[in-house]
């Protein structure tokens, strides 16, 4: 679901220093709606930016907006339409998930009966059923993370900020949580900013990736751009391979033969038009296309230089 075309989050020359420590250094970045992965090592400045976006920490200099609201001056208005899942433990053990999420729904401004209804709904959506009536103290880490996610979603925010939601989970729990986050973005129609120190897990679910290191922006790229429009397509035709290649080369495409007979070749994808040209060439020459397979560049490869 699109909620306006302007960036969901925009930071302009944001610097934040704590005494002599610089957490964010002249950070300028725009993040679109949808699922945005925010990657950086521990201490890279991810949590600092989240606090600034929630209007809880004024930047030393620069400005940030979230959903068009000014983080410096419109904190309460921001926190009305944004949800936040902290990295740290934040659940009291002696209360049930239902009661806790109902309470926090009220704290977000939902009237009493609506709070009850939405708490039950949201807990179900994150995968907590009968266990939600038991005290949180007895929950597994995975269940606790789900409660933390539920409290961030219960008031139907337009955007949620999820700080290291996969922390402490085993591989299966990690996959479940990532699928859930992807569903928040696609099925629930809520924009997501999700942080992790692991790029690999975010590239699976994010539409856009932002990488910071030591408070400095390293890269901000759409994963669609990054994975589909770079790299190569492997093309195989039934016949007359060399002629197809010649046509493509005449059209300006870079083509390399991959087998002896010349029926299998690789086309460098400079833009989407190249794929159309392959189809047109095959159609003109009356040959069949056996396959046209994109070899997705893995983001991990792209960022190897960054991660080092």
């Amino acid at each position, binding site marked *: 679901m699109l909620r306006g075309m302007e960036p969901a989050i925009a930071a302009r020359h944001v610097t934040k220093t704590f005494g002599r420590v610089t957490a964010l250094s002249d950070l300028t970045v725009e993040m679109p709606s949808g699922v945005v992965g925010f990657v950086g090592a521990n201490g890279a400045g991810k949590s600092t930016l989240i606090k600034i976006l929630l209007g809880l920490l004024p930047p030393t200099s620069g400005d940030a907006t979230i959903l068009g609201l000014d983080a410096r001056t419109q904190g309460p208005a921001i926190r009305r339409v944004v949800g936040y899942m*902290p990295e740290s433990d*934040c659940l009291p053990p002696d209360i049930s998930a239902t*009661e806790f999420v109902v309470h*926090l729904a009220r*704290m977000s401004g939902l*009237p009493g009966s609506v709070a009850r209804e939405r708490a039950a*709904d949201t807990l179900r*959506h994150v995968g907590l059923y009968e266990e939600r009536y038991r005290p949180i103290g007895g929950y597994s880490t995975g269940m606790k993370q789900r409660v933390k996610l539920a409290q961030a979603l219960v008031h139907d925010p337009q955007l949620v900020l999820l700080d290291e939601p996969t922390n402490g989970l085993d591989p299966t729990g990690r996959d479940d949580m990532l699928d859930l986050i992807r569903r928040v973005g696609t099925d629930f129609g809520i924009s997501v900013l999700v942080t992790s120190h692991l790029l690999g897990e975010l590239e699976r679910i994010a539409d856009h990736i932002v990488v910071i290191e030591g408070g400095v922006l390293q890269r901000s790229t759409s994963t669609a751009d990054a994975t589909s429009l770079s790299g190569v397509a492997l093309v195989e035709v039934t016949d007359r391979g060399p002629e197809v290649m010649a046509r493509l080369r005449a059209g300006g495409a870079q083509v390399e033969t991959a087998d002896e007979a010349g029926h299998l070749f690789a086309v460098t994808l400079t833009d989407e038009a190249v794929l159309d040209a392959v189809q047109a060439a095959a159609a003109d020459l009356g040959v069949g296309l056996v396959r046209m397979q994109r070899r997705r560049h893995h983001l991990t490869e792209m960022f190897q230089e960054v991660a080092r």
Partner: protein
Amino acid sequence: MSGDVIHDIGFRHYAGERLGRGWVVRSLLIDTLRGAFGLGRPARSKVMPWILVAILALPPVVIALTVLLTGGDELPVSYTQYLTQLQLPIGLFVAGAAPYAVSRDLRYGVMPLYLSRPMLRTDYVAARYGGLAIAVFLVMALPQTLLLVGALLANLPVGDQLAGWAGGLLASLLLAVLLAALGLAVAAFTPRRGLGVAAIITILLVVSGISFALSGIAESRDRSELADLAGALDPFRLVDGLTAKILGVDPAIGELTPTTGGQVAIFALVYAVVVGACGLALVRRYRKASGL
């Protein structure tokens, strides 16, 4: 519940009303008030507050019966005296309720969840404080009201009793404001609940002990004006001295109470400074140790 079928109808968006900070503060205040009496908490959390309520409510029933049976035209204890005489259960109630109000949120890191919602840090402090102060006030107002009912049933003069009762409520209010501020300030610095309970009750007992000890020393050296002033150290004596002067009623401890205007002014000043300092300490505490 039986027979209900859950249909997955997908995530529903909410387009309805979103209430403002006023509602948020009110909800948190009611949550604090309920929590102080163990409501919405496990059964074992209800035991202590309700035992204390029973301890505070029982004497008025006995007193009323005594007056009914023996006659007489006044209660054996005045409304304000009643508070001072039952300071131990009142103190215990504060010691139990204050840590529940704030220590839990600090200890389990819940503060970031509050702060990421449409409220300010000061809203949180105000709601927790307000809820606790109201709970402490109710705990004192209930036995006072029972005293009044007993007195009226015993056909004591209505005007006198109503005036005494109103004075008792005023003293209860002053005491609730002071005790809640003290209790909350101590609890906010002791994230472990047991420690908070112990710290609050210890502080209340120790200041009371020191206050009486100093008064005793001053008395023995014939410095009765200093003996009166030492009462300002103990919250119960402080409020008793203030209300006795304001209302013109008999103080709980007759010989040790402020008499001159200057002394009353000092009592009022101490009261204001203690409440103000506790409030300031709380606000500062939450500005720093918010966990976010």
